[in-house]
Structures are given as C-alpha cells and as structure tokens.
C-alpha cells in the first residue's frame, strides 16, 4: 500500500487564477495550470506573457502548437527558444511522433488537467538579449465552446483570456471555403467572448494582438494569396466584428499537412469453412469474451447469466458494440496525414511577438 499525504503549507500562487496552493502541489487546485510555471517565472525574474491558441474542436490547435514549438526548438527563422521544464516539450513530442507515424495526435480532453502547457523562453537572434517568456496552453475546443456558451464553466479559460498578451485564433478555412457558416459563428463567438472579458466601453477598441489563422488552408490555396480578403469574403461576421471592436488584428493562412489519405476498415472476405468449425469457433469466442472481457459491472448487473449471485441479476446487459455506433451517420473514415508540408506556421507567432 502506498499512502501519500499531501497536505502542506500554502505558498504558491497560481499565475493564471491567483489561487494559493500548497508548496507540494504541482497543478493549481482551482484551474489545473502547472505550478511549475510560477516557479520557473520566479527563477527567471521576468513576468511571463500568455499567448492563447484558441479555436473550434478539431480545427488543429494541438497540431499547430506542436509544430510551432518544434520549429522554434529547431531555431527556424533565426528564433532561439528554450523550453522551461520537460512538460513544455510534451505537446511537440506528441505531435511530431504521431505525425511521423502518419497519425493525428489524440484529441485533447476537456478536463484542464489533461491539457498540454508549454513554457518557453523565446528570442529573435537579431534582437540581442530581448528574451520573452511565453506560456502557451493547449485548450480543448469543447471546453472553449462550453465556456463561451456559459462563462465560468471553466474558470481557467476566462482567466487565461483575461491575462493573454496575445491570441492565435484558428479558423477552419476548408469548411469556410465550402460555405459552412460554422467556423464563422465559432470565431464570432470567440471574439465576442474576448470582447466581453476585456470589458471595455463600446467606443474603446481592444488592443490585444489577435492573429486570425486560416488553418487547413491547403484545402483552399487562395487563402495564402490574400488571407485578409478570404476572411472578408468567407467569414464576414468575424471580419465585421474585428473591424468594429479590435484594433490589432492580422490575418494569416497556415497549413501543416501536405497530403491527406483516408482509411476505412478493411472488409475481409472469410474463406469458406465447414459449418461445424464455424460454430465451434463462435462458441469459443463467446466463452472467451464472457470470461475475459466482461467488466465487473457487467458481471454484477447483467441478466445474461454471467452474474455471480442472485441479487446481482439486475440490469439488462450493457449494449454491445453495434455497427450503428460506428457508422450511423458519423464518419468512421480515418484521416491519415501522408506527409507534412508546413506553411505559415511561424508567421502569426512572429507577428504576435512583435506586437507584445
């Protein structure tokens, strides 16, 4: 048995939500931000700047952030970047290793303690000794949507947005080019949320630099020619909001995946077999499943005879995987990134850094 008694004195104030935490805490008890951010910041004697990467679920925030940090680590475009703490490298490692194996990284969970956080010291070599400490969280799109729909659902998001020195708003250019209004509405909501978090009067514009990044622009290469015009034409609600309320907005096109394949489950054609052997095999498989795979819940509450006592015979069996779950109107097609071709990843970041 292992027992960890974790109570200790309060002396670490979270830099995101200002909640006091115990000395031994590693994540903030209120917002789940890593407290190593605070400790690193204290040792650097510099106030870190928060740059938020926001956007709808599945727009590519994790992939963008992972590649951005990797490019910085590799000193692209004369940048020099130093990760502060091993946790800062997790997002780029996850993204790069998955993409190397032709897979997109796993979906980011809504729970803030599952998010990636990166703390980097960055400078452009041309500007000697101007180091900037950057904190960049990888938030889940669903959490952002929930927070926008009902503020204070995830306090960490409102705190992050309030404290952000700059933001990168990713918008799905492929969907927008196809005429979907969804990316436009999400971006409009996001900008409206940032507006309300700033709480300025109607005649005052928000000065926080915001880079509108047209993600997945490989679907509509015209984005690269004139992203501003693309936004005005295809994301007009967002465009109008930016004009009305934001003073410092720039538009970029970005693409990470060079070519994409789509995989579907292989349809196997069984070889003809004698009926007896098929029945025997099926019986064996059923028996193995009942013995090995059934969860404790199923064993206790199933009425299929697998329960171990009479009082356990309570509930009908949990629904078995059914083809409808996988297919019923939802995609089972797996997108496979065949190779990467980075375009426009660094530019939005570079612009924000200039504005900070």
């Amino acid at each position, binding site marked *: *048995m*292992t*027992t*960890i008694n*974790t*109570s*200790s004195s309060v002396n670490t104030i979270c830099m995101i939500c200002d909640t006091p*935490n115990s000395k*031994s*805490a*590693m*994540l903030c*008890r209120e917002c*789940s931000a890593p407290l190593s951010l605070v400790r690193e910041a204290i040792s650097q004697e510099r106030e870190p700047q928060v740059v938020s990467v926001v956007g*709808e*679920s*599945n727009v590519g925030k994790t992939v963008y952030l992972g590649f951005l940090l990797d490019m910085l680590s590799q000193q692209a475009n004369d940048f020099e970047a130093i990760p502060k703490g091993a946790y800062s490298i997790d997002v780029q490692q996850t993204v790069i290793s998955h993409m190397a194996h032709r*897979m*997109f990284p*796993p*979906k*980011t*969970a*809504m*729970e*803030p*303690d599952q998010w990636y956080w990166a703390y980097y010291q960055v400078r452009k070599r041309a500007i000697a000794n101007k180091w900037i400490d950057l904190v960049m969280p990888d938030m*889940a799109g*669903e959490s952002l*949507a*929930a927070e926008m729909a*009902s503020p*204070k659902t*995830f306090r960490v998001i409102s705190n992050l947005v309030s404290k952000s020195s700059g933001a990168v708003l990713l918008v799905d250019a492929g969907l927008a080019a196809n005429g979907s209004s*969804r990316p436009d*509405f999400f971006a409009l909501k996001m900008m409206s949320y940032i507006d309300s978090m700033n709480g300025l009067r109607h005649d005052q514009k928000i000065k926080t630099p915001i880079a509108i990044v047209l993600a997945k622009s490989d679907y509509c290469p015209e984005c690269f020619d004139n992203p501003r015009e693309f936004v005005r034409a295809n994301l007009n609600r967002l465009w109008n909001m930016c004009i009305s309320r934001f003073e410092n907005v720039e538009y970029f096109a970005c693409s990470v995946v060079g070519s994409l394949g789509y995989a579907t489950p292989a349809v196997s054609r069984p070889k003809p077999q004698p009926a007896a052997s098929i029945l025997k095999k099926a019986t064996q498989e059923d028996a193995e499943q009942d013995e090995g*795979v059934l*969860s*404790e*819940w199923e064993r*206790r*509450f199933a009425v299929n005879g697998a329960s171990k*006592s009479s*009082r356990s*015979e*309570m*509930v*009908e069996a*949990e*629904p078995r995987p*059914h083809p*409808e*779950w*996988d297919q*019923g*109107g*939802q*995609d*089972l097609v797996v*997108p496979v990134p065949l190779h990467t071709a980075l375009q426009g990843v660094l530019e939005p970041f570079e612009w924000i850094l200039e504005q900070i």
Partner: protein
Amino acid sequence: MAVKCEQAIFTSIRTLTGEGYRIIAASPGLNPDERTEITRRSPSHNSLCSPSSHAVGILNCRLDSGRYCIGYSRCAGAEQTARGGARVYTNLAVLCEDGFRRFEGNPVRAAAVLAREAGKSIMLKPQPRLDPLELDPDAIPHMDLEHDPTPCFGTSDDAYWLTKVLRPLLYGRSVLIVGASAPFEMLEWTLKALPLPIRIGISVSVGLRWASTRDIRLCFVDHAGIETRRAISGQGVEWLEVKSRPDDRQPEPQTDYCAMIGRWWRDRRFRDIVTLTGLIEEPASPNDLDHLAPLCDRQKQLVAAGHVDRDQLDADTLAWLNRTVAAFSRRT
C-alpha cells in the same frame, strides 16, 4: 414508487452547429447552472480508465443547486474525429435529495437503475429535448444481508481496506483508490459503513480517470500513472493503492468508529453495520461517531444500566447518542 428525475446525454457528436463533447440532449427541467456544472464534471475523451469496449464508469455528485447527479458512462464506438480512442457516452440523471435518499444514497444502485432505464440504447442523433426519467429504486432487488456471502473486495483483509478508506472520508478528505479488483462492491460497502447524512455528501466516481474539475471525494481508478500522481500532489488527496496484502509497516491510528466497523466486518455483522448507519439520520461529526462506537459495542449493558461517563459528553450529544443507540438496540 418511481423517483422522477431530469436526464441528459453527454457525448461527442458532429452536428451542423458544432462538434465534440457537450450535452447533446436534455430534459427541460435542467436549469442552466446545472447544465454548466454537468458539462464541467462529465467525462470527456479518454476519461474511461479501461480501453475495453465494455468499460463502464459511474459518477455521482451533489450539484450546487442541491440536486444530485448520477452518471453512467460507457464506450459508444469510435469518436467521430477518428483521432484515436472510443467515444465516451454518458447518461445522466438529476434527482432531488429525497429521491437520492430513496436509493439509500447508493450511487451504484442509482446508476444501475439508470443503466436499466436509459442506458440500453446509444442515441447519437437524439431529439434535443428528452422526457424526464422515472427511476424505480425497487427495480433492483435489495441486498440479502442474511444470506449473502461475505462481500469480497479481492483483498486478503477487506476490513483493513474498508477502515483505511473510511477514515479520510470521515474527516472530509478525498481518497483516490487505485487497483481495487471489485470497485463497485468496495464503493457500496464503504458508503454503507457511513451514516446516511455523510454518505450522500460524498461525490464518487468509479472507472473514470481522476480529474480535478469533477471534484470527486472518493475516486476508484483501475490504474494511475505519473500524471495522476502529479495531478493530486499537494491537493490533500489520499492515495490508496489496494494490494492483496496490507502493509503493516505503516500502521495508522484508528478512530473508534472505524475500529468498530472493522471488528463488525470481521465478525460478519454486515446487517448491523447497515442498520446502524441507516439509523443515524442527523449530521454526525467524526467525534460523535467515536463516542457512538463504544456505546454500540456495549449497547446491551448501557441500555440496561446506563453506564455512561456523563462528564465526557455534553447533554445534547448524549441525548442524540442515546436515541440512536436505543433505536439501534430495538432493531437488533
């Protein structure tokens, strides 16, 4: 008689207005604050501990509105973005305190009835407005405490582990239990060993990964890695890794109440445990329960002769204890 409750479904689907995890359908009686809290506390992607397609998780918490939320989670095929991992599908029921008390404050029982009523089907294209649910607490047979075999947590000393879990819960701390081989049994008996007013205030989860946003007091996980240790570090959460043999090298002081429960468990007095905790209807502090323990142990002599050290107990506590002990004596 069935308990009326509101219901919601929390999962990930793609629609014209958005995609990802959210409440995809709910009955109209859920208020906006409850929806917000459910969204924050419900399990999202990769939240089930087991990767098996048969994995099940349950969740129970008291919402800020005062109502109780029961969740029943399982896998529902591949998540629509196809970025790995199964879609986590959760049916939720929201019921009032009286309704939850009718389930004896037992979330396993409530979740089992919920699974029976609403968990049979997976609805990935539901109507946004669901009808309220009716959950019948008697739909499932009650435990037969006379003839049941000894409850087993899959450890060599269940009494040791039971008392080990009870102590932090009584003192308001959170507990993360790792590797229990029969977590539902262990959860049910842990809660049954607590008086009902304490029991219903404890938020629990089984089979779901630890997440601070869920604000769970008693969390059972199959396994926990470095991320979980990192998440609970410094949060006042007690980590108990259930192994088959208790570790005697770290003896901890037992409270009288926990020691009594342990003794009764070893004596197979399961009915007495359930009867006692069911009788305590008033809020009781750990100190109250520690006073109660010796009285219960010596109830017959006490009731007969009134041998109580009055100097140690104030009048109110004594009256309460006597009422409880008297009621307990009548029942047993």
